């Protein structure tokens, strides 16, 4: 059975005329690394909130269709129960810090405390997660004394430590500087290689997605416009997304007659090198 099964989901936030998601169906198998792209207002964040149960339990509004995530019927499962199986990370690193813990280590352990995990196991899992996210040396620091990238790694560690079956990241690098962005993507690449958790990532970093994702879903106006492997989607001419830098450069070269008019456009850096060598 798939980890995520969405069937004909239509959802409207309270007091809005237009639905944010329209007749959306999506299945994600265990362990898949699925990315979601689309313009602002396409419904990407709403999809994330639905996967984690905040739609409809936090935002209320009107939901039709069926949503099964990690074995839970989303509409019937309280948020507190969803939290154990679905981890959510969003853009603002600062607002994801609880504020009630005084060190990075305690911040990571916060979720486990709420779950009632015995202290010995909590310590072991916390240390493991600090090591995985590269925060071991900062464990005694105040969460507020970290850089944006470090805070975002802390946010990821804090939900991963709860061992969710699905990790949802809603534009986790959009408020970070280039160095912080790189830290997060390096960590995500490591997580994806481990393959223990299915990941849904919303991001505009198409070059990185082209290299690492199993799948790209394009959302537009609350609908799925396209869905497929990165190479098919990111090199496509039909979509409202620009494609990677490499695709754009190749397209330009082709338009100016510098490259052959036939053949696949490159999506990753390696493919681009091969493409231009050929041309």
């Amino acid at each position: 059975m798939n980890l995520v099964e969405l069937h004909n989901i239509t959802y409207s936030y309270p007091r809005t005329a237009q639905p944010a998601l329209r007749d959306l169906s999506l299945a994600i198998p265990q362990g898949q690394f699925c990315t979601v792209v689309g313009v602002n207002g396409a419904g990407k964040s709403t999809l994330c909130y639905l996967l984690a149960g905040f739609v409809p339990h936090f935002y209320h509004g009107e939901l039709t269709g069926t949503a099964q995530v990690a074995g839970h019927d989303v509409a019937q499962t309280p948020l507190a129960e969803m939290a154990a199986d679905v981890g959510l990370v969003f853009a603002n690193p600062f607002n994801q810090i609880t504020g009630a813990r005084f060190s990075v280590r305690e911040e990571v352990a916060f979720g486990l405390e709420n779950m009632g995990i015995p202290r010995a196991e909590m310590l072991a899992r916390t240390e493991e997660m600090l090591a995985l996210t590269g925060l071991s040396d900062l464990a005694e620091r105040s969460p507020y004394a970290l850089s944006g990238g470090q805070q975002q790694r802390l946010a990821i560690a804090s939900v991963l430590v709860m061992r969710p079956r699905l990790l949802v990241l809603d534009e986790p690098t959009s408020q970070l500087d280039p160095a912080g962005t790189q830290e997060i993507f390096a960590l995500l690449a490591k997580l994806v290689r481990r393959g223990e958790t299915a990941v849904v990532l919303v991001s505009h970093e198409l070059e990185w997605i082209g290299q690492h994702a199993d799948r790209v879903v394009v959302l537009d106006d609350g609908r799925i416009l396209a869905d497929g492997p990165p190479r098919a989607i990111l090199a496509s001419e039909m979509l409202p997304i620009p494609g990677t830098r490499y695709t754009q450069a190749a397209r330009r070269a082709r338009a100016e007659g510098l490259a052959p008019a036939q053949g696949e456009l490159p999506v990753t850096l390696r493919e681009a090198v091969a493409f231009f060598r050929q041309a």
Partner: protein
Amino acid sequence: MSSFTLYQPRDSGLHRLHPLTKLTLTLCGVATAVVLPGFWPNYLLFALFLLPLAAWGQIVCPLLRAVWPIWWPFVLSLFLVQGLFWPGGTPIVTLGPLSFKQEGVLFATAMAGRILVLIGSFLLLSLATRPDALMNALTARGLSHKLAYIILAAIQIVPRFQAKAETITAAQQSRGLETQGNLLRRARALLPLLGPLILSSLMDVEERAIALEARGFGRRTLRTSLILLSEQPWEKGVRALLLLATAVLILARTVLALR
């Protein structure tokens, strides 16, 4: 600008006491300060009880530095108001129509001592106890974890709130809002500062609520804790003794007052 806490980390016996023991000390100190009569016992209490405890915790200087700026405005206003406006009484110094009365000065001295012990007790607790350890001890005794969260988050979030207010002030000033000058001008500048501050803080609250829920904050299961609170075997006895002594003192004062 890390947090609002007064806590001073030290490796001392006082710091190692269970938070509840320190809280009991504080509350008993406060109750004693309120019921002790006369103008000198509170100063003795401060000198012979609070200061030695602070010395044990290696925080005498931080304690005095923290007490002073809170205490002196009380002292000043007490002496002025009670000294000058005590009805009748024996004048000590007379300056034109104003005269300092002996009874007022005595009363002000007694009150200042009382306030000294009140402030000192609370500051001693705050300086020697990690706020999260205290909240942990209290939630273990039945305090709501939501209330504990609010108290702890306030300690760390207030400084961020101030930083945000400064950013908004700078942003509005750069658009020509005048925030300095006479009272009227400052009052008029308040609205364009408060509006964005309140709205953006409300938006932060929504995100923080989501982050908390995503970490299982709403679960009704039994919680565990990473912080280990240690307790010496004799601490329960000390707490009981302190409570008993304070109760006896309050009872004695009540009986004396009734006679």
